[in-house]
């Protein structure tokens, strides 16, 4: 009975998601905000595995956004101009120098690169707990940011550099599918369906992982590491898998952002972004899959629609001399504090955490 209701609801959501773009202009600001919000939701789902399921506070998630976006820059543009590699790309890109792979291949490449980086970042934190993990991951995120900015002076041979720093790798390929053609920025609907499809895949993987042996191992480690290890859970493998899988999703979303923004610029990869994604997971409810989706969509809309388009003039109307977009991170910080103090379990709490965070004597 409830199972059928769940499936019906899921089907309904998917159909609504697919037909949603027909209600809005094909290049409207709302459509743009929706695409970004869905891509944020994918990232939030990735971070939720690390922070929510496994309980490893990761403050350097921006590293995977950066690596994902750079995977796209490296594998889907003329940036490595000495190379001539073309796999299943549009006729135009086929003639250009550089590495040009099909977007699906880049997506897989980004996931692999980020999974490897995630495991690498996880390694020094294995012996540590709590706050220390947060600081090590933060340090990694910052190092990747510094390398991205200064990558112009890191030469990889043949006059080519590692990144283009704050100039950005521009003219990246738009996604191309044989039979459909290249995506253009005048019609945003294909972009929406692409990221929606990615979201569905990531969501499905998340749901299956949660109920798997691995998912239960993560929760067990989160709840009590000593007990979990003595029950035979392999600590190293389980933790590293959490970092890797979480990172892979962030990388996929990052690759999408790279092609959607048509540029990979080192200035995008700031510490604030890590906190922004973390805020999505927290506001949705740590460890809750649907919470991460709702949190990602909510903050995505607040950040890209509500604050810049709707409320931006509010302080000026109140006689204050600033724009709301200037203080958006302050607003997210405020949301984090309020959320933690008033409703630490999030909007859609995971059942186990709700029980944990409700004082036993409360009704």
């Amino acid at each position: 009975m409830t199972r059928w209701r769940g499936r019906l609801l899921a089907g309904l959501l998917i159909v609504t998601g697919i037909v949603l773009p027909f209600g809005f202009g094909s290049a409207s600001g709302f459509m743009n905000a929706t695409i970004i919000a869905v891509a944020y939701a994918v990232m939030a789902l990735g971070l939720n595995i690390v922070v929510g399921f496994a309980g490893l506070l990761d403050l350097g998630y921006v590293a995977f956004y950066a690596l994902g976006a750079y995977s796209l820059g490296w594998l889907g543009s003329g940036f490595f101009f000495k190379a001539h590699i073309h796999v299943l790309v549009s006729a135009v890109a086929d003639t250009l120098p550089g590495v040009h792979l099909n977007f699906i291949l880049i997506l897989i490449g980004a996931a692999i690169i980020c999974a490897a980086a995630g495991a690498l970042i996880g390694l020094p934190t294995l012996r540590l707990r709590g706050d220390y993990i947060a600081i090590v991951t933060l340090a990694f995120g910052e190092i990747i940011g510094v390398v991205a900015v200064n990558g112009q002076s890191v030469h990889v041979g043949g006059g080519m550099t590692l990144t283009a720093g704050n100039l950005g790798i521009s003219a990246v390929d738009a996604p191309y599918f044989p039979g459909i053609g290249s995506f253009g920025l005048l019609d945003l609907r294909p972009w929406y369906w692409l990221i929606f499809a990615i979201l569905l895949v990531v969501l499905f993987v998340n749901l299956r992982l949660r109920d798997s042996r691995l998912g239960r191992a993560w929760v067990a480690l989160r709840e009590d590491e000593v007990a979990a290890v003595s029950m035979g859970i392999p600590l190293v493998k389980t933790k590293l898998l959490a970092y890797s899988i979480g990172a892979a999703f962030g990388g996929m979303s990052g690759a999408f952002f790279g092609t959607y923004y048509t540029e990979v610029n080192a200035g995008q990869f700031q510490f604030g972004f890590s906190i922004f994604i973390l805020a999505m997971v927290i506001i949705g409810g740590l460890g809750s899959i649907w919470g991460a989706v709702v949190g990602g969509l909510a903050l995505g809309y607040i950040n890209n629609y509500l604050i810049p388009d709707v409320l931006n003039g509010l302080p000026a109307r109140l006689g204050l001399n600033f724009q709301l977009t200037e203080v958006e991170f302050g607003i997210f910080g405020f949301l984090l504090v309020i959320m933690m103090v008033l409703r630490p379990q999030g909007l859609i709490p995971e059942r186990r955490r709700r029980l944990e965070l409700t004082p036993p004597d409360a009704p």
Partner: protein
Amino acid sequence: MGLVHHLEPVETTTISPAPPPAPPPAVAARPLAAVRRYAGRWGLIAALAALPVYYGISDLTHGYQAGFVAGHAVIHHDLSKLGFNFAEGLSNGAIWALIAIGYTLVYGIIELINFAHGDVFMIGSFTAVGLWATLGLGLTTGALGLIGGLIVTLVITMIVTGSLNVLIERVAYRPLRSAPKLASLITAVGFSFILQNVGLLWRGGSPQSVNDLIRAQQPVFTIAGVPILRGYILAFAVMIPLVFALTWFINTTRAGRAMRATAQDPEAARLMGINVNATISLTFALGGMLAGAAGLIYALYETNVWYFQGFKAGLIAFTAAVMGGIGNVRGAVLGGLIIGVIQSLADSRLGPEWTEAVVFGYLIAIMVLRPRGLLGEQTREAG
């Protein structure tokens, strides 16, 4: 609920400056652990010494460019450039040390990384700069007026940042004391962003230069070819008395004893009649006051202030606190000075754009080699 209610009964960190030697935990059972302990300590020391030794040898053998005379590069083969790096690094380190003490005190007592601490330091800088404008201190103020004005500024700034830190604890951390620790770390990050945006609205988004009141870059005397600037002397003249006052306070006063007791076991301290909440507030006040003093020195020394300065300073100071052994005041000072030297070496040899990466690389190296730091003891968090 007690803070350490669910913890294993291991030796917790202490904020007393005289840590007893850590008991060897089950060396016989795990011989590798003992090896790792010594390898970790010496590995960390080797990693720390690597940069100065490498650049010292390189200066002596290959020399360094000291300037141009008639179009030709002048190459020197001595250690005075390294000495200059050290002098600058140590005085920068004095600022980081003051901030690091704030991290270490708070961590020692409630095992929380007060993420907003760096931004309290930034607010300290802004308050100081605002105050000396209010007091009318300028480039033309006489020496006596300047010293008097700066002392007034220092006191008011310390009161402001101390109160701010207490307020943050009251609003953001105390309600979550019994919640999982992740919760208060997240509110700490949230508060850091709030303070940054307060700073952004206060003084705009780009670094602002302020009056060079004490002519910080003016040399006072020279030791072995290394000019000692006024800014260096200021940093130590403020840092050393404050650190001595703090250790005196923690070691001898009744309130200091309450702090140490709470750090060891809040539950037992409460049973002994210590007002734990007041003691925690006092700890935050002390940490905030030192951050305010650091903010004043920073503004006088660097002669510019920026809303984002606190973020970077906070991370550097946190690295310093971890390096020295978190929970240990002497360790925080030592770590601050070391990080200052590393930073100054990286600034001058690799270029300032890489400094952040070097400092964070060291942070990760500490975490791998010796998570409890140079002087720290074993804690549950940093096993």
